[in-house]
C-alpha cells in the first residue's frame, strides 16, 4: 500500500474538487517564510510535519505561526526532526481555519460485504478509533450504481448539515468517492472535516493507494516512505521482503507458509529477522537473487522452508546452489533447508550434491536452525 502524506493527499483533494485550505508544501525554513511573505499562505497559519505517523499534534509536529518569521522558526524546528522513527523532510503550511464544528468522513473497504463503505461521524477531530460505533454511521456503496444521492442526504442528516452546508457535503462526498474509486484507494479519510464559516474544509487528508493498481497509477510507484533499503531492493526484484528485529533469516514461499514458519521458530525460542517470500516463482535466477539479498541482511542462520507447488523444489535447489557459490566465505552463515512438494526428490538430490541436507520434518528443521543461530551469536 502507498500511504500519501497529508500534502500529497490534499493535492489529490484539490484535483477532485474536495475543498482544502490555501497552503503549500516546502522543504526548507526560508521557503516557509517566503511562502507566507508571498501571500501563498495567509496568516495565521499552521505548520505541519509531513510524516505518516499519527498523533502529530501531541508530538510537536504541528505548530502555529502569526508572522513570516514565526513560520520560518516553526519549519526550522520541525524539519529534520524525527517522529516515531520518521525523519521530517517536508512541512505543509496552510491557512489556519476558524473551526465551527469538526466532523469525520471516510471511504474504506468492507471486506465482508465486498463493498466500499462510507463512514461519517459528527464526532470528528479525534482518533476515529476512540469514537464509539454508535456515533459512526456506515453506508455500504454498491459499485453499481455508485454512491447515490439518497446516501449523501443521509450523511448530511447524520452530520446535522442542511442548506448550503448540506449542498457542500453532497458535492464533497461525490468527489471524494470518485477519488476513492478512480485512484484505486484503500482508504480516503477526512478528519477533521471542518465547518468553517458557511463552508466545509478538509483540514486533514489521509489517502492510502492500493499497490496492486500500480499498473494504472505509475505516478505512485516512487512513493514508499516506510520501506527499508533492503525492502526497496527486494521490491524492485519483485520479492516480498520484511525486516524484523531477530537474527534468523527465513526464505519461504507464500504468505501463509511464511507466517507459519515464523510461528514455529518462535515456539522453539528463535528470533526471526528477515523474512523473504519467494511467492510462486519457478525461475532459479530469482531464487539466487533472493538468497544474495538475504546474505546482505547478515543473518546468524538461514532457514529455507519451501513447499513446492508453482515453485518447483528442483528450481529452488538450483537457484540456491548457484547463490552459495557466489557468497564469499566471510559472509557465510549456517543454512537449514526443508524442501517438500513438487519435484521434491530432484531438489533434495541437487542440494545433497552441493553438500546441503534437507530436513523434511518442520519441527526438527526449525529446532536445528534455532540452535544454529544461537551457536553463531
Amino acid at each position, binding site marked *: 500500500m502507498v500511504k500519501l502524506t497529508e500534502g500529497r493527499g490534499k493535492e489529490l483533494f484539490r484535483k477532485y474538487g474536495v475543498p482544502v485550505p490555501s497552503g503549500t508544501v516546502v522543504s526548507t525554513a526560508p521557503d516557509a517564510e517566503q511562502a507566507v511573505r508571498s501571500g501563498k499562505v495567509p496568516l495565521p497559519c499552521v505548520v505541519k510535519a509531513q510524516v505518516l505517523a499519527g498523533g502529530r499534534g501531541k508530538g510537536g509536529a504541528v505548530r502555529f505561526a502569526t508572522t513570516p518569521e514565526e513560520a520560518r522558526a516553526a519549519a526550522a524546528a520541525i524539519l529534520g526532526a524525527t517522529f516515531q522513527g520518521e525523519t521530517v523532510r517536508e512541512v505543509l503550511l496552510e491557512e489556519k481555519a476558524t473551526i465551527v464544528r469538526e466532523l469525520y468522513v471516510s471511504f474504506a473497504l468492507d471486506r465482508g460485504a465486498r463493498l466500499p463503505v462510507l463512514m461519517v461521524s459528527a464526532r470528528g477531530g479525534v482518533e476515529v478509533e476512540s469514537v464509539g460505533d454508535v456515533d459512526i454511521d456506515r453506508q455500504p456503496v454498491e459499485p453499481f450504481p455508485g454512491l447515490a444521492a439518497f446516501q449523501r442526504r443521509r450523511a448530511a442528516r447524520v452530520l446535522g448539515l442542511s442548506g448550503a452546508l448540506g449542498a457542500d457535503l453532497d458535492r464533497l462526498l461525490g468527489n471524494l468517492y470518485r477519488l476513492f474509486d478512480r485512484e484505486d484507494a484503500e482508504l480516503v479519510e477526512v478528519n477533521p472535516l471542518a465547518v468553517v464559516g458557511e463552508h466545509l474544509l478538509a483540514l486533514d487528508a489521509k489517502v492510502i493507494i492500493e499497490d496492486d*493498481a500500480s499498473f494504472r497509477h505509475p505516478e505512485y510507484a516512487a512513493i514508499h516512505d516506510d520501506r527499508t533499503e533492503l525492502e526497496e531492493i527486494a521490491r524492485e526484484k519483485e520479492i516480498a521482503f520484511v525486516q*524484523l528485529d531477530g537474527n534468523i533469516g527465513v526464505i519461504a514461499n507464500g*504468505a501463509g507458509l511464511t*507466517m507459519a514458519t*515464523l510461528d514455529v521458530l518462535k515456539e522453539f525460542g528463535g528470533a526471526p529477522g528477515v523474512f523473504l517470500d519467494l511467492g510462486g516463482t519457478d525461475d532459479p535466477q530469482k531464487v539466487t537473487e533472493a538468497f544474495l539479498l538475504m546474505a546482505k541482511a547478515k543473518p546468524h542462520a538461514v532457514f529455507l522452508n*519451501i513447499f513446492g507447488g508453482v515453485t518447483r523444489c528442483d528450481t529452488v535447489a538450483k537457484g540456491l546452489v548457484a547463490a552459495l557459490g557466489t557468497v564469499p566465505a566471510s559472509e557465510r552463515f549456517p543454512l537449514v533447508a526443508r524442501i517438500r512438494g513438487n519435484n521434491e526428490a530432484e531438489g533434495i538430490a541437487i542440494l545433497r550434491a552441493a553438500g546441503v541436507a534437507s530436513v523434511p520434518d518442520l519441527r526438527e528443521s526449525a529446532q536445528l536452525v534455532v540452535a544454529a543461530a544461537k551457536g553463531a551469536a
Partner: protein
Amino acid sequence: MTVLVDADTKVVVQGITGHQGTVHARGMREFGTKVVAGVTPGKGGGNVDGVPVFDAVRDAVAATGANAACLFVPAPYAKDGLLEAVDAGVKLCVLVTEHIPFHDMLVMYHYARSKGVRIIGPNCPGVASPGKAKVGIIPNVVFRPGRVGVVSRSGTLTYEIVNGIKEHGLGQSTCIGLGGDPVVGTSFVDALPLFERDPETDLLVLVGEIGGTAEEEAAEMIRTQFSKPVVAYIAGRSAPPGKRMGHAGAIISRGRGTAASKVEALERAGARVARFPYEVSEIVAELAAKAGRR
C-alpha cells in the same frame, strides 16, 4: 458434484498459451481433469498439448461445452477475462492471477454474483477433489482420495497441511484454496455450507490467517450451522502488528482480525485449533481414529 467440481467438470483455461497456463493445464489433466479448451485472444485455431485454443471464451464454450474456467490472465486484463467467462455462461471461475486491484474485484464479484457465477480467488490455488477434478494449481502430489475437507485462505501452507493429512494415511474429499486477498469471490462462510451438504466430507480442516474477520465470521457459522468436526489453524500468531507478511490479507489493524480473536472465536465454536501446521494432521488423525472406533 461433491463440492464445486466433479467428473462432469469441463475446464477452459484462459491464458493457456502462457508459461503458467501451459504448465497447470498439464497438471490438471494429469490429475484426471477434463481440460477441454484454452483461450488466448489472437491465438485461436492452435492447440497446447492437444487442447484446442480459441480466440474467445464464448467460442470455446460453444465448441466444447466447458462449464468452468481457470484464469491465468495477467492482472491488468483479469477483469475483462472474468467478465468474458461469465458472459460465455461458465458457472465456476477459478482466478489464479495475483495482484488484481480490489476495485476490479468489486466489479467482478458483484457482476458474477448477479449472473449466478461462483468465483474462487483471486490469488488462489483453486479447488481439487481427488479422483474427480482439479481447477487450479494445487500440486497433485499432496492428494489422495478420502473424507477430509480442506478450506484455506493460504497457498503453499495449504499444500503443506493437505500433504500432512496424506502422510497420516488419510485422504481429502475436496480442498478449496480461497486466496487471501481483501476481496475474494468465495469466503469461508460461502464455502462452509458446501462442505456441510457434501456427503463425502466427514471432517473439515480450516486454515486461516491473521487480518480481516473472515475466520471470526466462519466461527459464528460453525457454531450455529455446521455439524461436522472442524480442525483449524491460524497462521501469523507471532507476526508483529502492522507489518505486511506478503499480501494484503495479512495486515493487523485496529485490534480486530488478530490471531487471538480468531483462535478464541473458533474454539468457542467448538473447533479444535492447532497451534502449528504439523499439529493439524495430528489432530485430524486423532479424530479420525476416534470416529473409526465408534
